[in-house]
């Protein structure tokens, strides 16, 4: 047996070796967590696609599906080329980041899990972009939408993400020396960064492009235009909820030391939509008298949006309260949008902008001091909600952030859509809108056998395709429309 005595230096060397190994394991497990949750967030793309497809009329299904598929694609490229650099490039200022354009400058060198971080943030950017497709559905030109989604993912969204989530941003909650009112914006998973940005961009788009033909009658009263498939709406909503379990718990961006926070986020992400769906059900029953599926689904989503900012730092009971009030906010915001004669087929503005804003306000009320310290580290003592402190600093910071985000997004997107509209690139021609965008632009209807009554349609691979409508088809289409 070896009986050489060991020295304290040996012990230190052993400790160092062990710490190194442990650091590797921790980095790897953090990568697992970030990748898996990012993949879950990606499933929200499927959810949005299905929700949108189910919520439009069958004659425009292919159009909106294509938009949803392509904003994931365009978003990936926009985020890759410049968006990520603007958002998280360390070589920037308080307003915008720089470095790592197209993942250059030895991107992977600094740390091991940087690729995973990039991927995670991409899924968030794509989520923000895809919110808009619902608001401008059934009447917007395809090319305009592509340009918009590149613009949003490469510039509008990244700047907001830099403000809030980059440690250098002026709204950052972890930049202790230099953040707003000593507090910053506690937007854990992106009520402001993702949902307000997407929802407000949708509102701008819907306002500028104008309502669908026939959406409001001569008196300005809205005419219902129900979506063509409730099953797809439910599938989409459930997939969104499923993906939200990546969105909220995954926003810890690490699991070692954050497991408890992630688990709490999963619980609040369950309770808030539960309370919101039940609240919207009863509200609808009281206000209108029926149990409308679409309202309940949107109510459920409103709870998810509402809890997104504060999922990690409120108590479960607060999640129930936030969810229930979000449903109320959604229903009245939705009515307000209609009153303004803005046609938003998926209620994206009311849901994502309205409830996103409400979620930030709720965070400032319900934020539990201890939990905030747990999540954001022991920062200045102003990190606490009004219900715990009788102190409005946090609310003030959140209100400033809401105004700033609103001004930034509206200030960019309104002119953008206005120019698009003036150029004639935004609104589809009226005759195409009436016939359905699918038939004229996307090679025939989504369900050629059922909806068109024509079992076999030539697939256009070479020449531009115009649907041949004989008398039979014509009659059929009329009844279907």
């Amino acid at each position, binding site marked *: 047996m070896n009986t050489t005595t060991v020295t304290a230096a040996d012990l230190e060397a052993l400790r160092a070796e062990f710490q190194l190994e442990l650091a590797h394991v921790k980095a*790897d497990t953090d990568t697992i967590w970030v990748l898996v949750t990012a*993949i879950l967030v990606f499933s929200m793309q499927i959810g949005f696609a299905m929700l949108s497809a189910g919520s439009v009329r069958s004659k425009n299904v292919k159009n909106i599906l294509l938009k949803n598929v392509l904003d994931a*694609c365009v978003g990936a490229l926009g985020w890759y080329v410049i968006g990520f650099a603007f958002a998280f490039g360390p070589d920037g200022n308080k307003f915008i980041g720089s470095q790592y354009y197209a993942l250059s400058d030895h991107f992977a060198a600094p740390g091991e899990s940087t*690729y995973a971080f990039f991927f995670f943030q991409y899924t968030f950017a794509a989520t923000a972009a895809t919110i808009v497709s619902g608001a401008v559905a059934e009447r917007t030109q395809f090319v305009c939408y592509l340009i918009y989604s590149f613009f949003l993912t490469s510039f509008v969204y990244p700047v907001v993400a830099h403000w809030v989530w980059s440690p250098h941003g002026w709204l950052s909650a972890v930049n202790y020396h230099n953040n707003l009112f000593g507090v910053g914006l506690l937007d854990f998973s992106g009520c402001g960064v993702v949902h307000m940005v997407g929802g407000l961009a949708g509102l701008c788009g819907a306002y500028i492009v104008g309502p669908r033909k026939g959406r409001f009658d001569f008196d300005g009263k809205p005419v219902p235009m129900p979506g063509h498939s409730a099953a797809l709406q439910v599938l989409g909503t459930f997939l969104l909820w499923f993906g939200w379990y990546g969105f909220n718990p995954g926003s810890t961006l690490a699991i070692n030391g954050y497991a408890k926070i992630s688990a709490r986020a999963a619980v609040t992400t369950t309770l808030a939509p539960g309370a919101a769906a039940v609240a919207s059900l009863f509200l609808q029953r009281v206000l209108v008298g029926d149990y409308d599926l679409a309202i309940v689904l949107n109510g459920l989503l409103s709870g998810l949006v509402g809890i997104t900012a504060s999922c990690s730092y409120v108590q479960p009971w607060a999640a129930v309260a936030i969810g229930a009030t979000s449903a109320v906010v959604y229903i009245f915001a939705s009515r307000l949008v209609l009153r303004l004669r803005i046609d938003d087929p998926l209620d994206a503005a009311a849901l994502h902008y309205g409830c996103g804003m409400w979620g930030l306000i709720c965070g400032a009320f319900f934020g539990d001091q201890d939990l905030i310290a747990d999540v954001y580290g022991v920062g200045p003592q102003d990190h606490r909600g009004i219900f715990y402190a009788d102190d409005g600093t946090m609310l003030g910071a959140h209100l400033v952030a809401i105004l700033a985000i609103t001004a930034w997004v509206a200030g960019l997107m309104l002119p953008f859509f206005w120019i698009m509209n003036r150029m004639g690139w935004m609104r589809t021609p009226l005759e195409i809108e009436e016939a359905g965008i699918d038939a004229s632009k996307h090679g025939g209807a989504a369900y050629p056998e*059922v909806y068109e009554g024509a079992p076999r349609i*030539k697939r256009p*691979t070479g020449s531009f395709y115009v649907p041949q409508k004989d008398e039979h088809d014509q009659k059929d289409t009329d009844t279907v429309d």
Partner: protein
Amino acid sequence: CAPGWMGSQCADAAPTPADDALSRQLNTLWVLLNASLIFVMQAGFALLASGCVRTKNVKNILMKSVFDAVLGALVYWAVGHAFAFGDSPRAYLANTIKQHRPDNANVFIGLDNFFLYHADQTDFAFFFQNFLFAILATTIVSGSVAERMQFKGYLLYSCIISGFIFPVSAHWIWSNEGWASPWRVREDRLGDNGFIDHAGSAGVHVVGGMASLAGALMVGPRIGRFPEKIVGHSATMAALGTSILWFGWYGFNCGSLGRVAAANGRVAVNTTLAGSASGLTTLLLCLALSGSPDVWLIMNGTLAGLAAVTAPCAVAESWGAVCIGVIAAFLYIGFSRLCERLGIDDPLDAVAVHAGCGFWGAVSPGFFATQANIRDVYGADYAANDYGVLYGGSGTFLGHQIAVTLSVAIWSLGASLLMFQVIKLVTGLRVHTEAETEGLDYTEHGGADFAFHK
């Protein structure tokens, strides 16, 4: 020496983790989660295929997708895994393979551990993941023979592909003993690296795509297909299927390393970029060629990029992934039109997407693999001279990639042609003309879908 699988490492490779047990648990976690995500791809294929056929054959094609999974589970368990990895489960045995190497181990096929018989030695997670690869390769075929293949004959081919054709090429590419495998010891390897196919551009997509080609050739075009087009009944189902496939693809690619590593982040990013670049390029091609964005083509174009990046996703850089995706889009459109020109009726464009773009993907490491990335994934004694020619590597690696991919393609095509010939003699391939015209759902599955009740 290979970094191996599930945390087992060679002595001369990276330092062994302080707690081998911990890293093994983590790797199992990683593989199980990602394999579960791959399972969703089965649902994706079912929906994509159901959307691409006419209503009268919907139940038939859904049935086939279901049976690809359930038959695959049984057949791959019974014999497939033995043929693929029977003599060299890369799992816990990877570092002691020399001692435990059975006498009948060979470079062509594994012949041990049928029915997971030595279940204690075999890593269940590894089996689970590879079973999913097998059923994916199989289910690719159901699209190309859709709407006209007999159900009995289909059951036979499903068993043979997941039980024999896929396992043999998987043995070549991924087992410790296969002649093309990068996991062999240094002196036995093909070149410096062996054949780098991270998640199966060749092993899954070329195998499935070439079997699709054989099936489409043998069974012939649908009645009324040429020169007409036949459009599927639901773009929504097809788009849902495509999106789900993309989602599952992250499990497919990220889990294929079999262990937790920072490289998995690069895999996810490259997968995203290639799919996106390919989808967008297909859109631009559509606009240029026909003036209208055709949703069917664009969805397949996205899948084309994903199929292509499956092999190089761990060893290419992000700009390489974008290039691979762009090229895949051109190849997809080209192969799709070529099939059309040759009178091959392939309802889902499986040949163009999986065989065509899979082939390109399997070759692409020869261009785009960087030395640093190969070493990051496989180990320090790799890529001395063999890496992508665009980074100044020797052409030997590219040559090897092409040669092995060709071998896999020839193997799959030849074996599948033989198989379909035999099935033709045993049960027959094609349904009767009346049955095809009326719809398989009525003749074989008790009535069509979409029974609209009033």
